[in-house]
């Protein structure tokens, strides 16, 4: 069967150049970058090159890039690392209700351990008001952590404004940039973030590798103790193949930004215009807010999201949903709840997330098959009355 992948906020396929770059590392350039012999130094220079490539993508210095195992570890290192290193100053953290679970659950864990957390609300469009951040800052605030772009609805937060507030208050500022990096331009200097998380597999790199940008001069308690790799910020022999591939993916993402952002936006708009024209009673979340160019979160009245996802999958189309029925916890999406949607509304949510390898023809196929799927599920609903 023909397969169409529109779930790129979950993960992306590696670009062929990226996977090709990994192969020589497995048996040829297999050295340990900590070794002083030729094999080790060969590996070290490959890691250094990748560090430059990743740094360039977000306008950081190479020395400010700490390679880790992925977005989750980057978020944990940033939040726990600052919380632990700053606890003499205070134990108050500011975050939002729509963060990724890697931030949400880390902050909840710190809350259990005695830190105080302010959970900022968002507007119905999913946006944080920077003034709310300003008002939440206290003398004992040690960290503000607000995601750059939301993985479910795609809203882009006013990070630059929040960064200015954090700088003025002299509070460390972390942003989870896992979804924004590679999809929109990111400049950590302009954003005034001290810490910024990125993940390779969301930008056509491999799984199991990511990075935390740590601004020069930031004190951070490491999560792992060991050989003091990554300038004492992250011990453990480097995932050289993953890091090299991440570097290539970052370079290609940077080169593609100018054209791919617009391309994805055109496809996304084509999808939304097509679906709105052909399916009555659907609503696009956060469509008035600044949004990632690749993300579309749609609520379908009188149909349930898991059933829509399975039906689309049976037609070869991969998407996701924030419905309680598809989550292990059986709770509706915390993001949709935070923007004021009822569990009933979240029940019918669908997330499409594109990448630059998708085509207009793929989008047209979805626009062609989804109306029939929705109609079939609505016919089965005890509440649906055909107009």
């Amino acid at each position, binding site marked *: 069967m023909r397969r169409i992948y529109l779930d790129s906020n979950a993960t992306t396929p590696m670009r062929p150049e990226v996977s090709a770059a990994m192969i020589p590392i497995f048996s040829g350039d297999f050295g340990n970058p900590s070794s002083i012999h030729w094999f080790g130094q060969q590996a070290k220079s490959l890691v250094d090159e990748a560090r430059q490539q990743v740094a360039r993508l977000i306008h950081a210095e190479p020395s400010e890039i700490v390679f880790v195992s992925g977005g989750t570890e980057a978020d944990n290192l940033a939040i726990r690392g600052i919380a632990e290193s700053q606890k003499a100053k205070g134990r108050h953290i500011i975050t939002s209700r729509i963060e990724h679970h890697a931030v949400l659950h880390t902050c909840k864990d710190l809350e259990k351990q005695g830190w105080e957390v302010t959970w900022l609300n968002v507007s119905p469009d999913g946006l944080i008001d920077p003034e709310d951040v300003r008002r939440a800052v206290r003398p004992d605030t040690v960290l503000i952590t607000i995601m750059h772009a939301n993985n479910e609805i795609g809203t882009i937060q006013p990070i630059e404004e929040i960064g200015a507030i954090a700088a003025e208050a002299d509070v460390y500022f972390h942003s989870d940039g896992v979804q924004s990096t590679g999809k929109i331009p990111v400049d950590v200097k302009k954003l005034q973030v001290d810490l910024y998380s990125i993940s390779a597999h969301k930008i056509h790199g491999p799984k199991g590798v990511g990075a935390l940008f740590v601004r020069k001069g930031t004190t951070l308690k490491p999560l792992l103790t060991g050989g003091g790799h990554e300038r004492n910020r992250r011990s453990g022999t480097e995932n050289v193949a993953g890091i090299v591939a991440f570097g290539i993916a970052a370079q290609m993402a940077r080169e593609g930004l100018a054209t791919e952002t617009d391309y994805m936006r055109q496809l996304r708009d084509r999808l939304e215009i097509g679906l709105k024209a052909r399916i009555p009673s659907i609503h696009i979340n956060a469509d008035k807010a600044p949004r990632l160019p690749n993300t579309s979160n749609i609520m379908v009245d009188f149909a349930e999201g898991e*059933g829509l996802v399975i039906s689309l999958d*049976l037609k070869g189309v991969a998407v996701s949903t924030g419905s*309680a*029925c598809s989550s292990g916890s*059986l709770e509706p999406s915390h993001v949709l709840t935070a923007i004021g949607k009822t569990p009933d509304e979240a*029940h019918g949510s669908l997330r499409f997330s594109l990448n630059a390898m998708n085509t207009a023809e793929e989008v047209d196929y979805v626009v062609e098959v989804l109306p029939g799927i929705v109609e079939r599920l609505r016919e089965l*609903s005890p*509440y649906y009355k055909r107009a």
Partner: protein
Amino acid sequence: MPYSSKLLDYFENPRCAGELADANAIAEVANPVCGDVMKLWLKVAANRIIDARFKTQGCSAAIATSSYATEMIIGMDLNQARAITREQIAEALGGLPQSKMHCSVLASDAIRAALRDFK
């Protein structure tokens, strides 16, 4: 795909979907866990279910188990129908992933609720 081909068949081609104009027992139940909703129409005569139809707004497992249970009870006497458990329904469809086991409770609840309505 976390489901059996039999379950997917009942999801894609549900049997006994729709409403029953001459039903004499009707119930609508909601799943408190996830919010799925099922409405069941029964026609009961001489202590036996002689026809049944359903409508469900819910996930694929909820729709498939609704359909299978509705089809299954046609022809049963009322005590047989009341005795149907969610495990029976889930097993008949090739089992459900642990996180979806609650879906099959919708159908067994609806049957019992409709039969209470008939009394």
